[in-house]
């Protein structure tokens, strides 16, 4: 029996009140790959994320995670989502440790009392992103990069097989960006699937195994070396091209 695809979308169409946000999307993401998601604002990147998370039900088509329906995948904590940082109330009275522990809730009983295994996973995850020393700090006192790392640690503690990162490098210093990319590559080598949206085309092209170009539908999808071409970039972004990697190289 063949191993199921990590993320599989079949002919997915999503509409918001009769307005089509995505149509005819077919996508099969393999385990152990980093996939870049490129598109302009309003091209359907967030919609695609929300569809994979199961927050939006497609009008037509089917989504499967590791061969399972989304509701089952959610219960098993298979998918972790790193939102853009602005979406959380940073004045909330919780510490870094508390936030990472929230990644373990799905494994706990109804009282959500941490067991030793949960504490160990939280510690390992925080050490992995080099945030263990800051574990007791209120989240509001973190820098942009530290906030990102804390939420990445939560995804690690959740032991998700699939990581969805929405613009993870926004407001993050170069050192943190490199550290995050390094970590993503390690996770990829451990068999995790990573889907990352960004408009930083330069860095996307350097660490992603595959790239998806999106504008209401999939314009191109394949190995970075094959599809990361000027033609596809022009089709995706129209005339307003962001800085391109090869302009400096050639």
């Amino acid at each position, binding site marked *: 029996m063949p191993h199921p695809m990590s993320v599989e979308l079949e002919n997915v169409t999503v509409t918001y009140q009769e307005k089509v946000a995505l149509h005819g999307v077919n996508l099969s993401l393999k385990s152990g790959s980093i996939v870049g998601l490129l598109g302009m604002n309003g091209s359907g990147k967030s919609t695609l994320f929300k569809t994979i998370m*199961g*927050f939006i039900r497609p009008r037509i088509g089917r989504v499967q995670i590791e061969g399972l329906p989304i509701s089952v995948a959610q*219960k098993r904590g298979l998918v972790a989502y790193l939102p853009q940082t602005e979406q959380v109330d940073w004045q909330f*009275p919780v*510490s870094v440790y508390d936030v990472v522990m929230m990644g373990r*809730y799905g494994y706990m009983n*109804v009282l959500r009392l941490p067991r030793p295994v949960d504490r160990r996973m939280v510690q390992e995850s925080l050490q992995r992103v080099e945030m263990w020393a800051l574990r007791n700090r209120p989240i509001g006192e973190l820098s942009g990069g530290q906030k990102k790392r804390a939420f990445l640690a939560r995804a690690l503690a959740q032991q998700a097989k699939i990581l969805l990162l929405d613009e993870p490098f926004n407001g993050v210093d170069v050192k943190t960006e490199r550290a995050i990319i390094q970590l993503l590559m390690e996770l990829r080598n451990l068999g995790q699937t990573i889907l990352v949206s960004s408009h930083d085309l330069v860095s996307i092209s350097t660490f992603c195994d595959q790239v998806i170009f999106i504008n209401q539908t999939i314009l191109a999808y394949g190995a970075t070396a094959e599809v990361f071409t000027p033609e596809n970039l022009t089709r995706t972004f129209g005339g307003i091209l962001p800085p391109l990697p090869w302009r400096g190289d050639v």
Partner: protein
Amino acid sequence: MGLIHGLTAPLQYEFMVKALVLSGLVGVVCGVLSCYLTLKGWALLGDAVAHSVTPGVVLAYVLHIPLAVGAFVFGVGSVLIIGWIQSQTRLKEDTVIGLVFTGLFALGLVLISKTPSNVDFLHILFGNLLGIATPDMIQTVGIGCLTLVVVFVLKNDLLLFCFDPTHARSIGIDITRLYYILLTLVSLTIVVALQAVGIILVVAMLITPGATAYLLTDRFDRMLMLAMLCGLGAAVLGTYLSYYWDAATGGCIVLMQTLWFLLAMGLAPKYGVGRRV
């Protein structure tokens, strides 16, 4: 000796013992809930629910069913109506909230004025801690304890719901359910608290302790403890004050709450105004 006598002397009256027990419980229950309301930004919604229960309480009285049932139906109903109007019109949420709760409160006032024995209803508006009847007391204690148990079982889920509902959803936690649970808890707490301070001041009990505690700590567990202590302290001291001054009990309790808040605002080590001087 004077202080101890002052605290113990009123305890020879059964009504004072009942009032102190009840106000203490109300203070604790409201204190716990107020943490979630403050963090979720539901202060206005809490006020709306509190006012909206008025017609429910009057109708329950007329129909001889438990007041809590009437209050609960109208409390949750008001939020459903708010959501429905919002989805049907282009109005903003706070406009719709203001519209719905004043409408329902007005309906409650009209019903009160058209119902023969309207003495009881003034107690609903302003509270009647010192004159509470035993059946009401039992009902109030029962609902208060139930609310406390539910909050403590779901403490972390509700926290996650307030902090990051997206993550909650992504790990398969039903946030619609949590929304209605929190809403139900707020409605039940209002039923409990209106016996003590009345509908008009209930919202103070549901906001002030949480706001006070929020200025004092960055840890949620401590915030819960502090809010419970603020609520308990204000309720008990307020009841004594009202006994000695012969003043409105609800007013005294809420004044104590406000006093705690002003103290915290002035003196809180990290978030107080005083730290800048």
